[in-house]
């Protein structure tokens, strides 16, 4: 009788994420994944019916991990300042601790799989954040007339720019850069100023 080897499954998942980042969706192959995970192609296909199913499952798992991280110590009842700061902390930690997850998420959410993956993994997160924004507007802590895209760009754009400098260890001019609490707070205060009525 066949049994599921959860250890092997974890190895397969990690390799799949790495290969998706390295090769992209087009260049990703089940055959190569099997080889690099030291299992047979047949075994791989017992777990996943095809490449499509594997990619979807991997994407949904990454999305759920992301959601769990974002929801950590966060509540929609928090004040806007406190809640947004928690989001910054969570995003910052997640991005720095899981670079492969983040790169893979980037690949998948810019592919034809995006819609399905996002819908399944981020449903709860959307509800929580929606409630958070509603509360913030009601308490007059957030400007009421702002589109989602502009909000996201202003609220998180600066953080992700700083995280990119941190990842590269240097700024656009090639000068060394290290992200610390002081710099993070400086950026956060400016963001808060822009979003507060």
């Amino acid at each position: 009788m066949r049994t599921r080897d959860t250890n092997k499954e974890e190895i397969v998942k990690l390799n799949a994420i790495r290969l998706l980042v390295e090769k992209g969706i087009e260049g990703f192959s089940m055959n190569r994944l099997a080889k690099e995970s030291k299992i047979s192609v047949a075994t791989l296909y017992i777990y996943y019916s095809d490449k499509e199913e594997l990619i979807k499952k991997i994407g949904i798992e990454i999305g759920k991990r992301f959601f769990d991280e974002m929801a950590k110590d966060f509540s929609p009842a928090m004040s806007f300042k406190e809640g947004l700061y928690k989001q910054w902390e969570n995003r910052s930690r997640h991005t720095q601790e899981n670079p492969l997850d983040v790169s893979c998420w980037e690949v998948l959410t810019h592919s034809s799989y995006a819609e399905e993956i996002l819908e399944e993994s981020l449903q709860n997160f959307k509800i929580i954040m929606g409630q958070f924004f509603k509360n913030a507007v009601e308490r007059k802590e957030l400007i009421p007339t702002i589109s989602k895209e502009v909000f996201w760009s202003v609220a998180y754009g600066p953080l992700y720019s700083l995280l990119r400098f941190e990842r590269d260890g240097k700024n656009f001019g090639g000068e060394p850069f290290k992200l610390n609490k002081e710099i993070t707070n400086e950026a956060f205060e400016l963001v808060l100023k822009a979003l507060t009525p």
Partner: protein
Amino acid sequence: MENEINNILIFGTNIKTEKDKNSISPILDAHPEIHQWNIDLEDIDSVLRIESETLNAEQIIKLITEQDYKCSELSE
């Protein structure tokens, strides 16, 4: 879920295109003992995956080769 994986058969084939796939679909779809099947046209092995509680590999191979396609069981 744990039991399901005992009823899965995996084959390498030369079923490469949608057209190839369409030519064998009716037989596999209509087969009363095949619970579910799919072919991964995206991968070089063109893996055929069959879920069936009763059929064995030889029976599947016969079914596919009768349609003039190659089919061999992939070992684990």
